[in-house]
């Protein structure tokens, strides 16, 4: 090639949920000049949820994402609990938690084996046609491949039993659950849960040999430029244990010190957002720290959510087997907080194990089989619900009118929190691997691997908060220089 390549598009990015594009601009030496992570999709749930019946929101908002519908379904249901002043009775709450942890297990499994994991399970330099679940099965063998399929099936089956459907469940109602489970179903879940715990442990074993044993993975984990010293956000319970279903929102700084620990309704005050003209997604940041550009550090409001973040904000994981894994993880890094972005893969598997343990513990609880499924409802009003989606903190906030219709709706969705960090990670990786104008598909896949750490859900991401959040926009002229800052 006589001329250096100056511009490359990765279009579309693949092995994630949603539409995205990476634009790479190279300088005259064939190194990276700039990189942009663009999300070209938008559907507008914030608009068409207005005027809907409040109790329809769990089933409407879960269509934001079909990979994590349970997250929206129960964030929404919990919001309605708050709107009606009706916390669910123990039986309903535990059924929800049971489903929710099965979902967490299933979603993390999906990412490791089907989405981001293949890059390491098959190999980062494997041909593209092998970098997928079929390549994984080809590499690890049909027996293990069948175990992968079977256990994902278990997670989905538990969701189906408790929630009515494996994808887009229906059981969440304000104050409770629409149905219980039979004794047969309970026994079925118990067997699946035990197997899930074992499989999660086996997966961690695979991680240790295939990832921790892989030179490229180790290099990326150790590389300082790929470790972002950001703030971290996640839910913790009263004892500081990680909890996916409920808790307070805890935010820690890059040094691990506490920045804030607040209830769901207060966290909305801590976050501001900005738009960029070249992407449909909005970019949240910690308002009081401020937006300092796509950069990480104590002075930058960029923060992260999801498995890496949750392990950074918790004092302990909350279940014994996962706790042991967590301690080994912290040992490897010499203590927390862990900033290495590629550690997301490890953190995710620790959570997969913890979620399986929680399912196994919950299914043994006799409360699941006895007692009311619904709490009496008060008058409809305003409410906030927070939950940890597999990918990060998810908040729904509704105001219902006197007939229970949606008057106002705000959503802060997991991957949205990570958008700034993802942009940063992509740029750092591109800077690292794009040399001498070489942008073959292997190099480009390395760039994509930087975002796959986050297990992004871009259909979710393009649903950031409208209305009440402070918004800052930099308006650029045609020459790219900033002309104007608009704030509201």
């Amino acid at each position, binding site marked *: 090639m006589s001329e250096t390549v100056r511009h490359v598009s990765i279009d579309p990015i693949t*092995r994630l949920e949603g539409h995205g594009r990476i634009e790479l601009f190279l300088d005259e030496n064939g190194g990276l000049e700039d990189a942009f992570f663009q999300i070209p999709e938008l559907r507008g749930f914030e608009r068409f949820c207005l005027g809907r019946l409040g109790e329809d929101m769990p089933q409407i908002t879960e269509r934001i994402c079909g990979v994590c519908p349970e997250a929206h379904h129960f964030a929404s249901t919990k919001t309605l609990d708050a709107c009606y002043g009706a916390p669910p009775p123990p039986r309903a709450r535990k059924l929800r938690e049971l489903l929710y942890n099965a979902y967490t297990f299933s979603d993390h499994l999906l990412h490791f084996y089907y989405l981001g994991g293949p890059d390491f399970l098959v190999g980062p330099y494997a041909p593209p046609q092998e970098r997928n679940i079929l390549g994984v099965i080809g590499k690890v063998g049909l027996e293990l491949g069948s175990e992968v399929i079977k256990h994902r099936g278990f997670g989905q089956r538990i969701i189906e039993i408790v929630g009515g459907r494996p994808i887009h469940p*229906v059981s969440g109602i304000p104050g409770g659950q629409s149905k219980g489970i039979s004794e047969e179903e309970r026994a079925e879940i118990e067997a699946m849960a035990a197997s899930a715990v074992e499989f999660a442990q086996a997966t961690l074993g695979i991680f240790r040999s295939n990832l921790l044993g892989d030179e490229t993975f180790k290099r990326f984990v150790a590389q300082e430029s790929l470790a972002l010293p950001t703030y971290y956000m996640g839910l913790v319970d009263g004892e500081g244990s990680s909890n996916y279903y409920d808790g307070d929102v805890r935010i820690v700084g890059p040094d691990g010190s506490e920045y804030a620990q607040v209830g769901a309704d207060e966290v909305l005050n801590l976050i501001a957002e900005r738009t960029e003209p070249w992407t449909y997604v909005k970019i949240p940041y910690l308002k009081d720290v401020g937006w300092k550009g796509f950069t990480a550090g104590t002075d930058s409001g960029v923060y992260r959510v999801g498995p890496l973040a949750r392990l950074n904000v918790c004092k302990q994981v909350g279940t014994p087997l996962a706790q042991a894994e967590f301690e080994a993880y912290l040992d490897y890094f010499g203590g927390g907080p862990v900033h290495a972005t590629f550690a997301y893969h490890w953190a995710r598997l620790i959570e997969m194990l913890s979620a399986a343990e929680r399912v196994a513990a919950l299914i043994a609880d006799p409360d699941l089989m006895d007692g009311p499924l619904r709490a009496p409802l008060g008058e409809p009003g305003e409410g906030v619900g927070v939950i940890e989606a597999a990918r990060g903190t998810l908040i729904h906030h509704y105001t219902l009118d006197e007939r229970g219709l949606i008057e106002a709706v705000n959503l802060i969705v997991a991957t949205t929190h990570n958008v700034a960090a993802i942009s940063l990670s992509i740029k750092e990786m591109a800077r690292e691997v794009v040399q001498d104008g070489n942008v073959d598909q292997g190099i480009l896949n390395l760039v994509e691997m930087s975002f796959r750490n986050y297990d992004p859900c871009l259909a979710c991401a393009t649903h950031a908060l409208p209305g009440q959040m402070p918004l800052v926009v930099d308006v650029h002229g045609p020459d790219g220089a900033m002309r104007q800052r608009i704030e509201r």
Partner: protein
Amino acid sequence: MADAKAQPQRGNKLKIGVYWAASCGGCDCSLLEVNEQILDVAAAADIYLWPCAADVKYADLEGYRNGELDIVLFNGAIRTAENREIAELIRAKTKALVAFGSCAHTGGVIGLANLASRDELFTTVFGEDTAAWPQLSATENGHELHLPEFLHKLTPLSEAVEVDYVVPGCPPPRGIVSELFSALIAGELPPIGTVFASPKNLCEECPRERKQEKITRILRPHQQEPDPEKCLLDQGFICMGPATRGGCGAVCPAANMPCTGCAGPTANVTDQGAAMLNTLASLIGTGEEGEDQLEAEDAILAQLDDVVGTFYRFGSATSLFRGSYHERNRTPR
């Protein structure tokens, strides 16, 4: 390693594709709900496109010959100019095109976006300052970046390109997906135009006992725990079953929740919401007809809220009214 019976009859592997337009990813996941059968599919077919699960890029898709793929399962609605362009590209590259899932079939839940204008939607999402809105072209640090246009109205796949098969549902249920895969693997796709669902309405397969009683009071699902045996409509819960295709096993009524109509209308119905409006008008009543009942009937009708969101939840993009009008305060831009 592959089961002998899973080999396609022609001796060559099928070339299949999966694509998502404006989508949530649920339809992609629904393909995995068949669990082990996916291995039979993998034995019979090579994946030539599947952004969620495989690394094929648009440049690769453009490089395929016209008609090279045997079949593409296309989910998601046409929301942006890019969705439409890729739909057209895929139509050219494949022999058979399937509108897979509610969004591709009838526009889906996200069709409710048509109830607002594009400007109204952008105002809600990005604020009133149009300078703050994403742009089709922008320059950042001297580099040109582009976004696809967000179209005025969302449409189903069939309004962009010709569709050969439809698999309804949000997402299509396991049994139907399995049926489709079995047909594919055996090389025995049904006649063009086939809809992979029951031609009858959901009531036909719902196990609840229906007596077609008068609806004397409209109930919302959280207002009362339903009797698990009786028809939900008979009890006063608005269930879209009479106006919706079956084939899903009535799993929502089995979970004590009314059908919301995700599989779209039965074959002879053009507008699913209108069909349900008609049905409800017949069912609502005090038990007697007469001039003296009118006031009581009005009181029952007044209990209904969000008619569009209830009756047109998945079908607003293909409804007869096609959008929103706001004639009282509509100002030209």
